């Protein structure tokens, strides 16, 4: 028997739509990390004093940083939506004998997302 081995393609992730969407989903983590660093920089400027903090805020609101925020927001939303959609796969929730349907788990995630977002906004804007 002389089997023929087809070599793996280098850009397999550009090959078809599901693979490309998968790669985009994975790359959202870069924006999540970038934003975490942004928050860390804010905390560092906060610790350094009012002048450093004001300079940081001025930087944060420049046009290129606004663009970054928009792109990062799109990435974060894509991360959230795909994360919630996949959450029922890892955890099978059972009530007694019945398996809780996937869409209920997803719905609960969305509810918690809205609730936590409202809480964070309230704490940061109100007090």
């Amino acid at each position, binding site marked *: 028997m002389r089997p023929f081995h087809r070599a793996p393609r280098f850009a397999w992730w550009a090959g078809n739509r599901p693979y490309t969407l998968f*790669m985009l989903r994975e790359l959202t983590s870069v924006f999540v990390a970038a934003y975490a*660093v942004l928050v860390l920089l804010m905390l560092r400027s906060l610790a350094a004093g009012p002048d450093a903090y004001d300079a940081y805020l001025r930087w944060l609101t420049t046009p290129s940083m606004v663009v970054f925020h928009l792109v990062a927001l799109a990435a974060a939303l894509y991360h959230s939506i795909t994360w919630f959609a996949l959450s029922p796969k890892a955890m099978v929730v059972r009530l007694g004998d019945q398996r809780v349907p996937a869409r209920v788990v997803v719905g609960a995630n969305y509810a918690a997302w809205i609730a936590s977002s409202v809480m964070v906004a309230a704490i940061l804007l109100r007090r």
Partner: protein
Amino acid sequence: MAKTGEPFWWLLFAAGGTVSAFLVPVHLLLGLALAAGAGGTREAFAYDRVLTVASHPLARIYLFVLISLSLFHWAHRFRFTLADGLHLKSSSFLSWACYGSAILGTLLTIVTLARL
């Protein structure tokens, strides 16, 4: 580090993915609101107010969790993305580079939060 400690890194990845999925969008929205000067954000983000809010012990824990877990989420996901996307062999170097960055970021976060 590559394969035997997998459950540990995966748990951090999962926790980080959940925390960031819930919280990062609203933070980004608030950042955009600040840039637009909308909804009283200029006053809400004044130095004294932010320092007071951020110094609260619960806020420090929240910020630590938000930053650190987001970094570990990225580290695990990016390690696999590089390995699969660029056909790199799953290596210790790649793991150290990714998780190491997240560990450094976490340490820096602890130091900064202590200084508030």
